[in-house]
């Protein structure tokens, strides 16, 4: 794409959004190569776009969990000093709701996304994609969402229907 075309499109976008200061702005943004963008792109959407290659099993995930997660989140995801990850199904409309991955989280992709970003807490970014798929599978298995022999990857993970998928009402319009 030529620079000239890009500038025209930017101007159209500015018009579509009403008065903007774009005319006065210095335009100092530096163009990026695709690999530069990919290096900082961590967004994963509920449809699975953004998920990396790789796969992991519930069995492998149990080992990852024991090594990296158990100390904070407890055996079986029942909670340790930090968040409980499993159980709580059917409790949301009770006097003591228990919000876990299984009882509350609407999308399975969110679990992988969060683990890749932030966990394990003291060493984020150290688990491989295979390990992330595996421990995701294990936590979903603890919640009875996938079977003991499940193997997850970029295709299978977004296809999972989470139990509370339809438990949310949007307060902000999508359009």
């Amino acid at each position, binding site marked *: 794409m030529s620079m000239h075309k890009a500038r025209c499109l930017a101007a159209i976008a500015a018009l579509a959004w009403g008065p*903007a200061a774009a005319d006065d702005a210095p335009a100092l943004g530096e163009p990026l190569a695709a690999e530069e963008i990919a290096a900082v792109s961590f967004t994963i959407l*509920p449809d699975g776009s953004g998920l990396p290659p790789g796969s992991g099993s519930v069995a492998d995930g149990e080992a990852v969990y024991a090594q990296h997660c158990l100390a904070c989140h407890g055996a079986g995801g029942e909670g340790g000093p930090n968040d409980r990850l499993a159980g709580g199904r059917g409790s949301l409309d009770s006097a003591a709701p228990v919000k876990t991955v299984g009882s509350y989280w609407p999308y399975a992709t969110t679990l992988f996304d969060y683990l890749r970003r932030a966990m394990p807490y003291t060493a984020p970014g150290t688990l491989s994609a295979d390990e992330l798929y595996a421990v995701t599978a294990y936590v979903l298995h603890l919640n009875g969402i996938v079977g003991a022999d499940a193997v997850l990857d970029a295709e299978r993970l977004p296809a999972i229907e989470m139990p509370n998928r339809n438990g949310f*009402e949007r307060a*902000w319009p999508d359009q």
Partner: protein
Amino acid sequence: MTDTDEAAPAAGNGLFDRRFFLRAGAAGGAALLVARAGAAERQPWMRAPGAGMSDHGAPAPQTSHIRRIAVSSQPGTTGAGVSRTPLEFLDGIITPSRLHFERHHSGIPAIDPDRHRLVISGLVERPLAFSVESLARYPQVSRIQFLECSGNSGGMIAPEPRQASCGELHGLLSVSEWGGVPLSVLLDEAGVRPAARWVVADGADAAMMSRSVPLEKLMDDAIVALHQNGEPLRPSNGYPMRLFLPGWEGNMSVKWLRTLRVTDQPAMTKDETSKYSDLMADGKARLFTFPMGVKSLITSPSPGLFLGPRGVYQVSGLAWSGAGRIRRVEVSADGGRSWADAELDAHVLDKCATRFRSAWHWDGAPAVLMSRATDDAGNVQPTRAAVLAGRAANAFYHYNGIQAWQVTADGEVHNVYA
């Protein structure tokens, strides 16, 4: 201190008309001040030249107790937690930067600004990277606005009122002058594609905190903030750059902003789904409850402060709304049976806290003080019962109920539900 005959009561139990202080400046005002300025002799600090200049200011040592409070972290971490603004010790509207509340998810990153860039990508014609230096060369805007954590005042859902200071209960609220570059300018430069609806913002902290923001908000009044109260952002508030979304729940104003990914849908990140959503009693949850509701509280008197002898006191507090400006604040000294308009300080700004003041004659008997704010969209601060109605028992986000403080005959102030 009973020289209040000239002022007509405006509401029950000793509340005066909001103009009281203006009149009192000439008449009864002296009663508010303790005149002990026996200046006949030199005090010790007047007998020799004082300390010299320095390159770095500091609060008076005698005020060293004014510090962030209720600093707490999740078990096993030092950087996943909160610290709160001691609202009861502050006046005006600006929160000193050193006292701005904190909410971090994995500590404060030690960012090298020369190696930090903001990347805008996704549904744009031209993905772009901006250095700190280049952003500083754009036309800047600055506004005085509040930032409130969605979990602020969450302790108020407890069945029995927690006895804690005003700041411990409500101190996840701070006000600053935020300066930076309008997002609309940067997004226009990148050229937003027609299918774009959302922008996923990531921070450069160890948790890569991530929130999806409607494109509409970014094009409206959002900025990439570089400055807070006139100085570069402090590390605890996002140095070298943060997203700032006026009026919206604080979690979305992503600190240490690193990437903005333009998308056609929200990413449904951990924080926007599993955390900052509002579970209702019927088991359904409300998603994307972004603006902070109209709210006020009396910061003086409040728990942690004490009343002395009976007489005239200033009742002062903060009112704010994510929907716009504060139009009106009413104060009650009889537990909500009657209300009088409070005087608003000069700065009544958009999506900013407004300082209000009332004059109250305390007769020494127990009394319940309350404040109630109305914004310029007509939203009226609800009662605690109205906020909690229909919510799940442990749903604590977006609490904006009317706060009641009980003044005891001993001059102590307690948190009460009224």
